[in-house]
């Protein structure tokens, strides 16, 4: 049964909410503000009752795939389990119901949480300072590149170019462009890594930054990373780390130690904050000392010293206590790039990330990446006989296959993706990275069990089999979803993005 649009459920006079009456003498509105400021007709919003809204949204939710209901091996997205304690902590009134302009005396808990999160992110990445302001990965990239521009500008020349590999996520070149840079693409070699020679060829003293992610979007580790860093630094360029793939590295290696000068993290990936059907996330940016003066305002400052003790001995398991210093916001940062958004950051998201990090601790965070890598290699080992595996080495936390062979038999990566839905699995990322034809990018994350992976592997094998037998049928997949394949061409051509009631 299809769920109607909320507008079709509307009936004059219905309502879901009533409001308190105004309990003082009520003048006509036009005595308060001039008539021409006022709206002439009420906005044509639906008129429905609470039960209508609850049923509408509940039913719609049921036709979604989600981590809470399905394995979601969407590559580059790290769709790990979102622990429920995180939501509980973030929605405590002490966090969810404080105003950003409240006096610091009434928000020491929030400031301490921010401070603690900055410190743990520094520990994880090997960077010197973090800003929690950016709202997502792409926003972090833009922040990072504006920091880099400010850094170079302070040194006399903002420089003109940013190098990105051909496998980079679209946000990288796009962010570089918005920060005013010309994008230079460097190709990958046949191991999926940056081609060192070609890199050398494009590196010059107009290069402001080199943007990499490691492991790359090919799912493989950049083995020449130290060399790349040395070369870039020698040319006066800074190294930017796209943290989307950090789930491979926690406790294993740190971008800061590799030579990266600026990193952004996607807390909605590595740190388990739920993706909300598209957001909100958060994209904290970490920098090395030299870039700290440029970070967005405000910064946390310690007003009254007292050790911020986040240490808890494992040995005697003594109670964890946070001895927080008195903190305040500091706006007086003359070299700052300014602000990337209102206020301080996505508190509710950041609190979830902090909760997640504190839950795992040192050992636990290390295990996250280990298991993520083993899970991915397990899938690789079990599928590489049927799906083309473009890179020979072990993968990191995700594996990129090419459906080249299947394409030859008549089914595309898209067909495979759609067919997987019928087996109760979300599809992998497809057609990204663009360097791999018919890419199927699979990221299992550490929160999936071996049994789930085995069922997924079986489904992938069965699909390969189906293609060998009759590739045609897959063109009509999926078969068991609430709708069959959606006509995207029509959607773009006969644009309907704002419901207008057709007259009867």
């Amino acid at each position, binding site marked *: 049964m299809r769920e109607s649009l909320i507008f079709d459920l509307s009936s004059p006079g219905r309502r879901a909410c009533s409001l308190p009456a105004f309990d003082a003498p009520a003048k006509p509105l036009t005595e308060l503000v001039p008539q021409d400021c006022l709206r002439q007709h009420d906005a044509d919003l639906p008129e429905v009752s609470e039960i209508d809204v609850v049923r509408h949204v509940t039913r719609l939710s049921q036709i979604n795939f989600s981590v809470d209901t399905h394995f979601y091996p969407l590559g580059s997205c790290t769709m790990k389990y979102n622990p429920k304690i995180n939501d509980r*902590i973030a929605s405590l009134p002490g966090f969810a119901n404080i105003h950003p302009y409240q006096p610091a005396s009434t*928000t020491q808990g929030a400031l301490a949480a921010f401070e603690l999160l900055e410190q743990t992110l520094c520990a994880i990445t090997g960077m010197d300072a973090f800003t929690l302001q950016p709202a997502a990965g792409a926003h972090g990239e833009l922040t990072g590149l504006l920091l880099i521009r400010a850094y170079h500008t302070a040194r006399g020349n903002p420089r003109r170019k940013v190098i990105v590999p051909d496998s980079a996520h679209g946000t990288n070149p796009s962010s570089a462009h918005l920060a005013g840079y010309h994008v230079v693409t460097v190709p990958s070699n046949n191991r999926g890594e940056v081609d060192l020679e070609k890199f050398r060829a494009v590196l010059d003293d107009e290069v402001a930054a080199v943007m990499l992610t490691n492991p790359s979007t090919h799912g493989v580790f950049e083995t020449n990373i130290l060399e790349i860093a040395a070369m870039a630094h020698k040319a006066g360029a800074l190294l930017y780390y796209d943290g989307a793939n950090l789930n491979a590295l926690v406790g294993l290696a740190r971008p800061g130690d590799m030579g990266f000068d600026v990193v952004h993290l996607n807390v909605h990936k590595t740190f388990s904050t739920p993706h909300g059907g598209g957001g909100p996330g958060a994209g904290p940016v970490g920098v090395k000392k030299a870039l700290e003066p440029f970070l967005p305002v405000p910064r946390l400052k310690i007003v009254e010293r007292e050790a911020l003790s986040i240490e808890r001995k494992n040995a005697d398991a003594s109670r964890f206590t946070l001895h927080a210093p008195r903190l305040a916001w500091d706006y007086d940062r003359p070299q700052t790039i300014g602000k990337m958004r209102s206020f301080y950051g996505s508190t509710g998201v950041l609190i979830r990330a902090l909760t997640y990090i504190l839950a795992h601790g040192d050992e636990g965070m290390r295990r996250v990446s280990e298991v993520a890598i083993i899970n991915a290699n397990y899938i690789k080992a079990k599928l590489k006989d049927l799906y083309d595996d473009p890179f020979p080495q072990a993968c990191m936390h995700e594996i990129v296959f090419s459906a080249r062979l299947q394409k030859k038999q008549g089914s595309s990566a898209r067909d495979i993706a759609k067919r997987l839905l019928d087996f109760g699995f979300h599809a992998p990322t497809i057609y990204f990275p663009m360097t791999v034809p018919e890419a199927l990018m699979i990221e299992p994350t550490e929160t999936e069990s071996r049994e789930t992976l085995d069922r997924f592997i079986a489904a992938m094998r069965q699909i390969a089999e189906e293609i060998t037998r009759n590739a045609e049928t897959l063109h009509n997949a999926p078969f068991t979803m609430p709708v069959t394949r959606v006509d995207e061409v029509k959607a773009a051509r006969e644009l309907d993005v704002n419901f207008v009631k057709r007259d009867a």
Partner: protein
Amino acid sequence: MDYIPNTDADLSAMLREIGVAGFDELVAAVPASLRKFKMELPSAMSEPELQRELGAMAARNQPLDALTSFLGAGAYEHFIPSAIDHLVSRGELYTAYTPYQAEASQGTLQLLYEYQSLICRLTGMDISNASLYDGGSAVGESAYLALNAHSKRSRIVVSGALHPEYRQVLKTYTAGMGTEIVELPVRDGVTDLDALAAAVNENTAAVLLQSPNFFGCIEPMQRAGELIKPKGAWFVAVVNPLSLGTLRPPGEYGADFAVGEGQPLGIPVSYGGPYLGFLTSTRQLVHKISGRIVGRSVDTEGREAFCLTLQAREQHIRREKAASNICSNQSLMALRAAIFLMLLGKRGMREMAELNLRRSHQAAEAISRVPGFALKFPRAPFFNEFVVTCPAPAQTICDRLERDGILAGLPLGRFCAGMERDLLVCVTETKSTADIERLAEALGRAASGEVQP
């Protein structure tokens, strides 16, 4: 405490199947020198410990429900219907990714389509995207779009009454673009339109005005639009969506883009985020706006079905040529706003906006009667906040009232030089007559305490 199902036994078995001797073999590509570090995170905590310790951290904050707050200035304390939390906390909604696979995401897609439609109806604009990060970044984003849609122009004219944080974002965002930002003076609480007329030229890509503006005043948007249009610049209206329950919507005064902060629509103040940036435009600009857009289409059997559309605008296809780099957005917050608009509905939105209008005027009157206090901009119409000039530094007054559990408002000295005695007071429908009386009395006491030198 971790969330990893596979045990050591599982992992050993898997490593065997992979055909390696151990985990280290899988990560042999990582140089040994990189692996020699200590992370030094605190040791793990179990869930009971997290509940206790982070609960204690939260308890070090004083939530608004334990205070009486008149703070606004871009983040507003409003009624949030209980059904919103109930619905958005459904796992199927909040643990889904961006709906790339339409067939497995019809729930999210239809709701975002409804969000777009609801926002269009509220703003009177033709097109809405499926969300941006927040109000501040939406202003920055609108500059990118304006500059991109007017690729030959490089001046942006902005009202000095635009929220100072938004103005700062605008400057930060455009730092690499060679943009000339011209700031208009404010007179009597609203943007100086003569200055506007003078500043807008053939090189002006956009003019940004906020209404109600940072001081709470309603700007003469109609007249501003009439001055902007002939110059061919884009008119960007920054609006409080809740105010549109009773105020004239940007679609009626000729805005090309209407953007703003969606937090008043059912989103908790939450110390500044996550919030909701909204972005709307005229039909003409549909291919110029950024962010996800959901379209209504059909499936192969002709049934109504939804999918992401106009993706060719976006970074993952256009890469460095995209007008914006946005990828993840604020879907779940858009969903909150959509549910809010469904629940409040036609009548509720009007009533709630009117209540804000009435309460703030009630408070303005009450405060005006307190000796020593006066409205700063008595002639400008306002919605739910207004500026009061105090008989002492506003910060001093606020500090006094804080002791009584009242947050009197935002002292403006911090943002506007020369306004040290000015206080921005916000009064939403959450305040009662009794609250307003309490505020007025407390201000009176604080001031009389101040009169003695």
